[in-house]
């Protein structure tokens, strides 16, 4: 990338336990300056526990963690002054107006009131909430609240932004709004760590990402590398596959998943697959598409439901 590589976050063998429950078993990763780094995983994979250690909310049960080269256990206060956190749950203050929410929060960072007021206005403009300055938080829609939380996490002009599922529960319009803001922030050079279970979000925003499950890292890399490495270029989906086809695919040793009523074949060359399978494909629907991050995710973390 040309610019000098400088690690913003260095996490080694992070571990987090709650009594007998192991939320994070062993997670290591680095986030470079100006990078958008994604933490992906199904519910209960340990994403939020990892994030909470990152901003010094949860003490580590094991491992070491440095942010801006400082130890989180010792220098949490100066680290927190330089990061912005967008938590999963809405924690806006319903007693205050939109603008006051930002001003009060700025005071926690010891930003003088006049400066805080100026900053609040800039940020409300940035997230498109200028018109709602005087509104009560309860009058905002879900998407507006999310944008306000995003604005609040930027109040201290952070060098690192930590986002825990920033678009969960938003409609497509609001989601795209949030993505556009995050892309604008990336252009300003802010480093971002983001958890999500929307693969589209991860592919669009993340330079690099890590897929985790059961508190462990399953894979790490750029979205395109991960797809190439774990799935290949293309995916052939066959609906209601005839038994003969399943046997043939096993015989030919093609990489595939058999979901019963649906067969998924991963390949680098769709043409070869068509040549091999040809007339065995049967009468059911047949779909050839590009491999996506979602294929990687499901392949690595399995298809069972998580509660």
């Amino acid at each position, binding site marked *: 990338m040309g610019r000098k590589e400088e690690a913003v976050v260095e996490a080694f063998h992070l571990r987090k336990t709650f009594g007998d429950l192991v939320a994070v078993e062993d997670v290591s990763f680095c986030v470079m300056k100006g990078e958008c780094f994604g933490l992906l995983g199904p519910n209960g994979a340990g994403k939020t526990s990892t994030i909470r250690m990152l901003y010094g909310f949860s003490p580590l049960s094991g491992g070491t963690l440095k942010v801006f080269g400082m130890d989180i256990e010792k220098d949490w206060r100066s680290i927190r002054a330089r990061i912005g956190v967008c938590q999963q*749950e*809405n924690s806006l203050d319903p007693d205050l107006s939109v603008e006051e929410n930002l001003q009060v929060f700025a005071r*926690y960072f010891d930003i003088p009131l006049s400066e805080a007021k100026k900053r609040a206005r800039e940020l409300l403009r940035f997230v498109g909430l200028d018109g709602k300055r005087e509104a009560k938080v309860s009058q905002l829609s879900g998407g507006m609240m999310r944008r306000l939380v995003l604005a609040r996490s930027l109040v201290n002009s952070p060098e690192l932004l930590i986002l825990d599922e920033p678009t969960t529960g938003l409609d497509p319009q609001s989601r795209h709004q949030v993505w556009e803001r995050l892309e604008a922030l990336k252009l300003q050079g802010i480093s971002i760590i983001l958890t999500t279970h929307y693969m589209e979000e991860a592919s669009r925003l993340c330079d690099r990402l890590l897929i985790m499950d059961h508190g462990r890292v399953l894979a790490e890399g750029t979205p395109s590398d991960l797809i190439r490495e774990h799935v290949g270029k293309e995916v052939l989906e066959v609906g209601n596959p005839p038994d003969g086809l399943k046997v043939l695919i096993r015989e030919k040793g093609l990489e595939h998943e058999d979901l019963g009523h649906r067969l998924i074949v991963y390949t680098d060359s769709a043409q070869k697959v068509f040549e091999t399978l040809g007339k065995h494909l049967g009468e059911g629907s047949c779909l050839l598409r590009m491999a996506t991050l979602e294929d990687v995710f499901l392949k690595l973390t399995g298809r069972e439901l998580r509660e």
Partner: protein
Amino acid sequence: MSFLPPLLEPILYLAAFGAGLSVLIGTVEFRGKTVSYASFIAPALLAINMMYNSFFENTYGSFVRMYYQKTFDAMLATPLSLEEVIAGEMAWGATKSLIATVLMQAVVSLFGLIQYPEGLLILPLSLLGGIAFASLGMVFTAEMSHIEMFNLPIFLLISPMFLFGGTFFPLEALPPWAAKIAWAFPLTHLVELTRWCALGSLDAGLIWNFLYLVAFSCLFFPLAIWRMKRRLIK
């Protein structure tokens, strides 16, 4: 809005007890002093007001901020520590006690029921009483799993103090064993201090009531912070 009760409540109480019961009771004799029933209960109303404002702020108010509004979670993403957040909550509880006292004392003084300048000591006293009951409330907030559980300490602790803490009748009217229990209540000491400040006669013995409240606060304030840390830091 939340400061309307301290303005109106004393008027209601003084009307009911002062005007109504005074006819029956007339004057109260205690510790060799004879005072009108209205000037006996007026300082108790002030002390109860301190207790209510701080205790309820740091039980219901703090619980809502902690549990429903996730305010503490948000604050812990800033350069604030949990100790500072909780200490700030209790300081606000004590501040509310002071504000409510200023308002109520102004009303009560209009009836000529507070002697000055001694009565001015009630203001700093409301901060001390406020910290004591704020800390007590915060300890319950740290322990309660659900907001409805606050009924328990209110029923078992706050209401008995309200009724038997030397508030509406002198402790001497209680059987000796019951009076001993009443002296264990923080409100009893707060009422005692407020009453003698209001009556304008201070004596050296009051130092023990003062020290009781200081000791109570020194115990419960750190206890509240410790229990909240156990609850929230995971």
